[in-house]
């Protein structure tokens, strides 16, 4: 068969919900660099929250060691598939930084509790112990770059949260989803919706079954303020936009601790 006669296999970039790659419930698509990508609707956002909620207790209940292994596995798979990101303008140094970031966060899974929790000195015959617990389901408006995307997903999931990510850059995000889908990440832990986040984010901001809202990637201050007001109705934690964020810098612990709740237990001391 002559080479020219071969049928072109064109890719459709679909959503990533509950470990599967469905089209948008609305059937809508948009074109990005000549390929079709799914344009997520509010019902896709609702389904993604259901998937994230269903996955959350088991993911949070997994041992920290196990979560670290899964995150390290993501770094392995990214290393193996790094060339798949090249067509979307991801340079070698950004790819390196992205993989290093996963490895860095993977290492934190079984250490964050020692750093942010511990025994507290109290005046009385009690053991007083604080331990960090995941906030729950986190809705994230991600920045467009691959490093930025990883810099918002990894700190949320490493501590046992599950995420619904609104990704502005469909091809990069869904290629990352393909890495996650082959890295032993349980279905529903990371859910990625592509399309116009200005359309779906308000539904997530007001959703009573979403526990925190990360607005890192929101570009318009007005929209960010509106989302923050909507989130206040259900007392969600909100991470404000960071338009000038330098994702190559050391992120510190703040991205992880922002999505943790401290639980403190008083226990009587016996003689």
């Amino acid at each position: 068969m002559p080479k020219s006669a071969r049928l072109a296999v064109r890719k459709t970039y679909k959503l990533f919900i509950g470990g599967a790659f469905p089209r948008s419930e609305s059937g809508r698509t948009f074109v990005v660099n000549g390929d079709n990508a799914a344009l997520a609707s509010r019902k896709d956002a609702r389904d993604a929250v259901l998937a994230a909620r269903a996955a959350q207790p088991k993911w949070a209940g997994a041992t920290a060691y196990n979560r670290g292994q899964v995150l390290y596995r993501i770094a392995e798979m990214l290393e193996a598939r790094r060339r798949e990101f090249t067509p979307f303008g991801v340079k070698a140094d950004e790819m390196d930084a992205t993989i290093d970031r996963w490895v860095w966060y993977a290492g934190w899974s079984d250490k964050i509790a020692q750093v942010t929790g511990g025994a507290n000195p109290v005046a009385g015959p009690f053991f007083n112990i604080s331990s960090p617990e995941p906030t729950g389901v986190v809705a994230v408006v991600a920045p467009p770059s691959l490093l930025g995307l990883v810099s918002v997903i990894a700190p949320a999931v490493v501590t046992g949260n599950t995420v619904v990510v609104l990704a502005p850059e469909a091809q990069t995000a869904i290629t990352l989803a393909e890495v996650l889908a082959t890295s032993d990440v349980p279905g529903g832990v990371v859910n990625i919706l592509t399309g116009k986040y200005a359309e779906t984010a308000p539904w997530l901001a007001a959703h009573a079954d979403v526990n925190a809202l990360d607005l890192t990637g929101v570009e318009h201050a007005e929209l960010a303020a509106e989302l923050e007001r909507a989130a206040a109705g259900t007392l969600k934690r909100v991470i404000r936009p960071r338009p000038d964020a330098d994702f190559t810098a050391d992120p510190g612990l703040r991205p992880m601790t922002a999505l943790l709740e401290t639980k403190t237990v008083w226990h009587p001391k016996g003689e």
Partner: protein
Amino acid sequence: MTATASIGLSDLRSFLHGLPGVDKVGVESRAAALGTRSVKASAKASAIDLAIRMVDLTTLEGADTPGKVRALCAKGRRPDPADPSCPAVAAICVYPAMVPVAAAALAGSGVHLASVATAFPSGQAPLEVKLADTRAAVEAGADEIDMVISRGAFLAGEYNRVFDEIVAVKEASGAAHLKVILETGELATYDNVRRASWLAMLAGADFIKTSTGKVAVNATLPITLVMLEAVRDYRIAYNRQVGVKPAGGIKNTKDAIKYLVTINETVGDDWLSPDWFRFGASSLLNDLLMQRTRLTTGHYAGPDYFTLD
């Protein structure tokens, strides 16, 4: 007994086996087609309120305590404490031992009190025990009795025995409404569901109910469709209306609305009322409340804001 006078007890077998067979493929595709109807906005809001009014809020666990039953009754009287416009459920459904507790908790509320009886869920007990079970529940304050038929006897072809049992339990229930549970998951075929429906109606059932909720297969839309056709045909033949209650496995608003569509398209408006159609359910109510909140507030609701039952 009036119904049997017209067909004669000895003819029961030939009557039931003379009923037309159910087209399995047809009924399943009809039910699937009815399940695709889109009900939105104000129609959805009124469907949700109707569904809430049709719920028989149920707890049938060995671990039921008086406290749990009282909590369930409070929820049944006012399902959404944050919204006074939310209607009450149709009834609370409990085991006979819990009827006195529930009767006290529901006094004056207008919410009915249903009790399962007749050796629920298996029905494998002597008739005297079943009748005593029924009488005790009625005396303790139940105004609806959910009885189970002897599936073993029905499947063995002892139709007269099943018939006599229903008649006896009906008599023991006195003024209480009698719902007859066919346990369709154990009847194996749609033909048997149709026969059992007719048998129960001829014996005097006020309601026919699909399931106990205790076996693998509970209420399904096609089975409910077959039962709705039976109550429709029975009313034409005998001029008496009988209610239908699917129970078990109806978990969310979408399912509940499919049932409402099926009622409307099969038997019409006459059955679209809590007097003639009920949902036997527990987790369904919270989903109905969440969908209701979504419509009234404009944002998605979460289970953290509703009671755990």
